[in-house]
C-alpha cells in the first residue's frame, strides 16, 4: 500500500503522506522504505521546490512507529534504526531543492525531525497543529537528528528545554520560537509556499545564543539544566529509573558546537543505549495502556452523544467537587452547587488557584464558565450532574430525589462516591438508568484515571456516555464492577494498612515513606493517608472490612489510628496528621505522634536520636515489598472477583490512578519480573492468602 506518494506538478513537487491503514501518519517500516525510494528518484531529478504535506486530518506525522521502538532488543539494531532515520533526514536536507514542510496537525518526534530537515516549516493554523519532540516521555531522546537540528532553529536554550521536557508548541508558540518560519491559515497554504519560495534555500543557520560559545557560560548553563531536571526525581536512582534524562543532558552538552556528522553519530549511539532499557519498554507500554483506555469501545459508542453536551452541574464545593468543576470547565459551562456560602467561597478560591497559570495570570475565561450557586437555579438545561457531597447514602439519595424535579429526563446523574453502592442510589428512582458512578482521584485535575461504575439499573448507553465524557475531559476511564471500594481504593487500603503496621512495629515514618518514594511512588503511604484525610481512610477501611468480611483483616485499621482520627488529627485538612501541613506544604513530623505510636522513632533529625536503643531499620526493598505485596494480593483478588475484566487495565489503573511509577510498567508488570516461588513465600509470610490468579503474572513478563 502506498503511504507516501511523490507527486510532480509543474510548479512544485510534493511528498504526500496519507494512509488508510492507520488513523495518523507514522514513520514505520513501510513509510520509511517508500520515502527512501522516493528520495532515490528525487536525487536523480531534483525539483526546484519540494513540499512535504499530509492528507490526514489532524495529523502531519505523529512520529516514529512506537511498536518499532518497543520491538527492538539489540542496542546495535536500535543505533542502526536511528542511523537510518538520520540518513533519510540528511538526504532531504542535502537535496538542492528548496524544501518546505506544510505542518497541519500533530507533528511529533520523528515527524518534526523530518520537518526540521526541510528549509522551512509552515505551521498551518489549526487547534490540532502541535509541534514537539516528546521522546523523553517514552524514555529516549530524539534520534533522527532532532537533537542536532532543533537547536539550530530555536536556539540552544529553547531546544534544551523542549527536548528535556518533551513539551509541545502550538502554532503561535512555534512561530514565536522560530521553529516555524511562517504561520498560515489552511486557505493560505499556496501563498505561503510562494512567499517562502522567493526567499530561497537557507544557506546557514547561526549558532544561538552567542554566549553559549563561551565555555564557562556553557558549563553554568548545563549545570542549571541538570539541577532543574533532577529536582523532579530527587528520591530516585535516576540511572535506573529514567536513564534518558542524564543521557540526554550529556548528549546535548557533548554535541553543542560539534559539526553535524559526529554529532549525529553520537545521537544514534546514545539512542541505541536508551532504546533497549526496560524503562523505555515500560513507558511505551504505559502509554499504550492509556491509549487503550481512551480508545475503548464504550468511548467510541458514547462520543456522539457527549459532543453536544454543554453544561454540567457539580454538587459539593470541597476539594474533590472544586477539582471536578475545574476539569469539567475545559469543555462546558459549570454550575458549582453548595448548601452554604462559606464553603462555596472556599471552593471557588481553590478553583481560582487551579486557574493560575505561569506568570501569575489566571485563565479567567475558563474561570468565568464556573458559576457558584446556592439555590436550585440553572438545572433545567444541565446535561450532566456530578455529585461530590458528603459520603452518606442518605445525603446522596436525597440529592438525586430533589434533582429529579428540576433536570431533564436524560440528564446524566453521576456520583463521585468512592465506597457507596450505585444500585442503592437507584433504588426507587425514576429514570434510574442514567445514574452511574464516576470516581475521580485526588487531585482531580491531575490524576488521569477515573473509575466508571454501573449500578444494577444503569443502562449500557449511560456507561458509554460516561466513558466518552471522561475522555473528552482528558481522563482515562476504566469500567469497574460495583463492588466495595471499586478497584483502586480497595487495593490501596491494604497497602496503607501494611505501612501502618510497619510504623507501629517501630519503623520510622520517614523511612517507610522514603523507601516508597525511592521506589518511585509520588508520595509515601503515610503522606498519602494525610493527603486523603485520616478520617476518610478510617471510613473506607472500616467500611471495607465490614462488607468484605472474608478478607476483613486486610482492611482493619489499627486501634491507635482510630484514636488519631478521634482526636482530630485528620491530615492535611486539619493541618496535622503524621506530618504537619502549612498551606498544603508538608512539614516536619507531627510531634504528638508519640502519644499514639510509642514505638515510632520520632527523633528523625540527625543527632537527635539515641541510636543505640532503636532497632536496625528494615532494608528499603523489604519496606517496599511489605507495602506492595498486600496491594498485589488485593489486586489479584479483584481480578478473581472480576472487578475489572482485563488484567492489563489493572496496570493502567495503578499508574494513572495512584501514580505507581510508570517506569516500572505497572503493578503486575513489576511483580511479573520476580521469582514466583519466592513471591509466594513472601505472601504467606505476610499472613496473606496466596491468590488463585498468581499464574496471570506470567503474561506480564
Amino acid at each position: 500500500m502506498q503511504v507516501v506518494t511523490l507527486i510532480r506538478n509543474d510548479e512544485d513537487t510534493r511528498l504526500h503522506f496519507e494512509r488508510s491503514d492507520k488513523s495518523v501518519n507514522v514513520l514505520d517500516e513501510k513509510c520509511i522504505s517508500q520515502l527512501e525510494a522516493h528520495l532515490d528518484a528525487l536525487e536523480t531529478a531534483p525539483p526546484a521546490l519540494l513540499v512535504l504535506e499530509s492528507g490526514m486530518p489532524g495529523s502531519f506525522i505523529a512520529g516514529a512507529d512506537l511498536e518499532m521502538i518497543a520491538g527492538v532488543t539489540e542496542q546495535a539494531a536500535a543505533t542502526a534504526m536511528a542511523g537510518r532515520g538520520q540518513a533519510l533526514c540528511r538526504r532531504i536536507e542535502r537535496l538542492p531543492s528548496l524544501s518546505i514542510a506544510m505542518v497541519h496537525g500533530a507533528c511529533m518526534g520523528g515527524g518534526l525531525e523530518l520537518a526540521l530537515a526541510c528549509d522551512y516549516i509552515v505551521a498551518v493554523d489549526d487547534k490540532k497543529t502541535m509541534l514537539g519532540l516528546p521522546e523523553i516521555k517514552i524514555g529516549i531522546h530524539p534520534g533522527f537528528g532532532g537533537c542536532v537540528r532543533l537547536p539550530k532553529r530555536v536556539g540552544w536554550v529553547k531546544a534544551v528545554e523542549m527536548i528535556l521536557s518533551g513539551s509541545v508548541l502550538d502554532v503561535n508558540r512555534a512561530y514565536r520560537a522560530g521553529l516555524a518560519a511562517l504561520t498560515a491559515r489552511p486557505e493560505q497554504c499556496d501563498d505561503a509556499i510562494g512567499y517562502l519560495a522567493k526567499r530561497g534555500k537557507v544557506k546557514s543557520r547561526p549558532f544561538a545564543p552567542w554566549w553559549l560559545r563561551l565555555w564557562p557560560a556553557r558549563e553554568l548553563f548545563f549545570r542549571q539544566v541538570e539541577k532543574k531536571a533532577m529536582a523532579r526525581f530527587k528520591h530516585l536512582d535516576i540511572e535506573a529509573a529514567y536513564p534518558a534524562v542524564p543521557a540526554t543532558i550529556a548528549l546535548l552538552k557533548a554535541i553543542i558546537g560539534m559539526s553535524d556528522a559526529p554529532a549525529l553519530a553520537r545521537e544514534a549511539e546514545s539512542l541505541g543505549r536508551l532504546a533497549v532499557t526496560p524503562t523505555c519498554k515500560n513507558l511505551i507500554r504505559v502509554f499504550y495502556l492509556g491509549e487503550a483506555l481512551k480508545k475503548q469501545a464504550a468511548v467510541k459508542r458514547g462520543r456522539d452523544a457527549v459532543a453536544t453536551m454543554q453544561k454540567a452541574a457539580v454538587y459539593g464545593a470541597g476539594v474533590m467537587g472544586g477539582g471536578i468543576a475545574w476539569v469539567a470547565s475545559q469543555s462546558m459551562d459549570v454550575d458549582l452547587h453548595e448548601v452554604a456560602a462559606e464553603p462555596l467561597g472556599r471552593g471557588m478560591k481553590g478553583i481560582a488557584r487551579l486557574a493560575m497559570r505561569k506568570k501569575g495570570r489566571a485563565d479567567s475565561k475558563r474561570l468565568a464558565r464556573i458559576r457558584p450557586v446556592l439555590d436550585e437555579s440553572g438545572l433545567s438545561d444541565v446535561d450532566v450532574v456530578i455529585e461530590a457531597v458528603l459520603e452518606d447514602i442518605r445525603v446522596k439519595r436525597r440529592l438525586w430525589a430533589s434533582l429529579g424535579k428540576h433536570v431533564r429526563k436524560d440528564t446524566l446523574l453521576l456520583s463521585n462516591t468512592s465506597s457507596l453502592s450505585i444500585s442503592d442510589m437507584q433504588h426507587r428512582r425514576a429514570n434510574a438508568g442514567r445514574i452511574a458512578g464516576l470516581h475521580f482521584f485526588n487531585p482531580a485535575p491531575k490524576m488521569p484515571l477515573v473509575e466508571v461504575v454501573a449500578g444494577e439499573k444503569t443502562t449500557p448507553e449511560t456507561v458509554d456516555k460516561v466513558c466518552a465524557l471522561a475522555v473528552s475531559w482528558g481522563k482515562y476511564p476504566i469500567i469497574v464492577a460495583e463492588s466495595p471500594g471499586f478497584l483502586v481504593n480497595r487495593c490501596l487500603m491494604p497497602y496503607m494498612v501494611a505501612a501502618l503496621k510497619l510504623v507501629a512495629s517501630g519503623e520510622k515514618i520517614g523511612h517507610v515513606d522514603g523507601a516508597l518514594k525511592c521506589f518511585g511512588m509520588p508520595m509515601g503511604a503515610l503522606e498519602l493517608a494525610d493527603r486523603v484525610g485520616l478520617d476518610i481512610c478510617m471510613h473506607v477501611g472500616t467500611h471495607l472490612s465490614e462488607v468484605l468480611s472474608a478478607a476483613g483483616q486486610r482492611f482493619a485499621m489499627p486501634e491507635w489510628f482510630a484514636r488519631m482520627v478521634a482526636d482530630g488529627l485528620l491530615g492535611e485538612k486539619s493541618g496535622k496528621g503524621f506530618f504537619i501541613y502549612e498551606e498544603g506544604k508538608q512539614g516536619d513530623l507531627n510531634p504528638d505522634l508519640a502519644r499514639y505510636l510509642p514505638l515510632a522513632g520520632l527523633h528523625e533529625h540527625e543527632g537527635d536520636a539515641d541510636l543505640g536503643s532503636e532497632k536496625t531499620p528494615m532494608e528499603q526493598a523489604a519496606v517496599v515489598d511489605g507495602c506492595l505485596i498486600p496491594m498485589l494480593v488485593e489486586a489479584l483478588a479483584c481480578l478473581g472477583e472480576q472487578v475489572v475484566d482485563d488484567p492489563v487495565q489493572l496496570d493502567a489503573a495503578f499508574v494513572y490512578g495512584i501514580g505507581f511509577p510508570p517506569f516500572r510498567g505497572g503493578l503486575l508488570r513489576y511483580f511479573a519480573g520476580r521469582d514466583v516461588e519466592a513471591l509466594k513465600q513472601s505472601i504467606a509470610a505476610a499472613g496473606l492468602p496466596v491468590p488463585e490468579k498468581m499464574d496471570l503474572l506470567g503474561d506480564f513478563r
Partner: protein
Amino acid sequence: MSAAVQSGKKATGLPRDVVVVAGLRTPLGKAGGAFDKLGAVELGSMAMRELLARSPVSSDDIDQVILGNVIQPAEASNIARVIALTAGVPQQVPAHTVHRNCASGMQAITDAAEKIQLGRADVVLAGGVESMTHAPLLFDDRFRAAMAKWPRAKALPQKLSVLAELARAPWKPRIALLEGLTDPTVGMGMGQTAELLAREFGVTRAEQDAYALMSHQRAAAGWSDGWFDDEVMHLFAPPSYADVHRDEGIRAGQTLQALAKLKPAFDRPLGSVTAGNSSQITDGAAMLILSHREKAEAEGWPIMGYLRDWAYTGCDPARMGLGPVFATHRLLASGGLSMSDITRMEINEAFAVQVLACLKAMESEAFAAEQLGGKPIGVPDMDRLNVHGGAVAIGHPVGVSGARLVLTLLGQLQKDTGGGLGVATLCIGGGQGGAMLLEGC
C-alpha cells in the same frame, strides 16, 4: 407613542403591554472595596449569567441585549456585546451599549421597552453595569501628542526632541472619575450643583444629615428583614472569593453625630454637602428581562410588573438635581395622573440635598408657576418614598442606578403593596431628568 401606531407593525395600532419577567442585581460594592478585582465586564457577565440561570427565559429566547454604562472601559468597546458573549448569550443575538449619564441603566430599559412596543423585538435583556473603581487615569493631551510623535521619530535628533517634549509635558494624570462627574458646559462638579440647590432651597446641613441617616436605616432594615434577598445575587469576588451579598456601603450603625463630624466635600469650609450625605461611588450591575404580555403568557413566564410610560426632560445643567421634578411632571401630565395616584416612588439619591430640593420644588406654587407653567405636582408621603433606602446608603454606580430603581420599585409593588402605580425617577448629570411609570400586578 404615536410612532408605534404609525409604524404599522401591529394591526391593532395599540402599543403592546411591556412586562418585566425577571430581574436581579449584584450587591453594590464600594469603589476599591469588595469588587476591586472585578471589572465591569466580569460584574456584568456574572449578573447576566445568574439572571439567565434563574429565570425561565433561556438565552435562546433573547432577541437583543441593551446595557447602560457610563465609564466605558477602553478594553471592552461596546461593553454590552462583550458581556453578552461572556455570559453565554448566543452570538446571533445583537447587543449595544447606551449612555445617558446617570440614567444609562434606565435608558437601556426604555429603549428595550420601545423596541418591544414597536414589535421589533419580543424579548430584550436590558440593564446597566458600572465599575467606578476602574475609572482610568488619563495622560494630559500634550503628553499624548508627544507620545504620538515617538514612532515617527526615526533619527536620533528627532528622538531627542520628542523626549524633551515628553519631559516638559505634564505628567500628572487626569482622574477620569472626577472629570466625568464634572459638567463641562457649566464647569461645575456634581457636588457643586448640589451645593447650589442647598443654598437656593434653603436645605440645611442638619436636614441633609437626617435624610442620609434615614436612608441608611431603611436600607439596613431592608437587609435585616430579608427584603433584598431575592433582588440581589450572591457574588463570590476574588481574591478571597468570600460571599458578598449585602450592599457594602450600608452602615447599620450610622448616627447623626458621626455624620455631623464630616467636613464639606465640595465647598470648603462653608458648604453643607459631605461624603456622608451624598451617594456613594460604587460598582455593580443590574439586569432585567423585558417582554410583552402575550409572549410572557404564552411561554408561562411570571410577570413582575408592567412598564407603562416614561419621560425624559432637559433642565438647567447647573441645577441638574431638579431633573426628577420636570420628568415626573411630564410623566404624570401625559397620563393624566396626580401624585395621589402613586403608591410608591423612587427618587435617586444623588445627594440628600438634591432629593430634599426636589420635594420642595414639587410642592412649591412659585416653582410650579415659574418653571412648569401650572400647579405644583405635589409630594409623595415619606412612607411612600425610597422606603428601602437609596443611593446615599446603597450606592450610585452611575450606569446601574436607573435599572436598580426600576428593579427595586417592581419589588415593592409586588411584595409591599401588592400592585398599584410607582414612579422611578432620577436626575442626570448635564441637566436632565428621567422618570418611568410602573404598574404592579
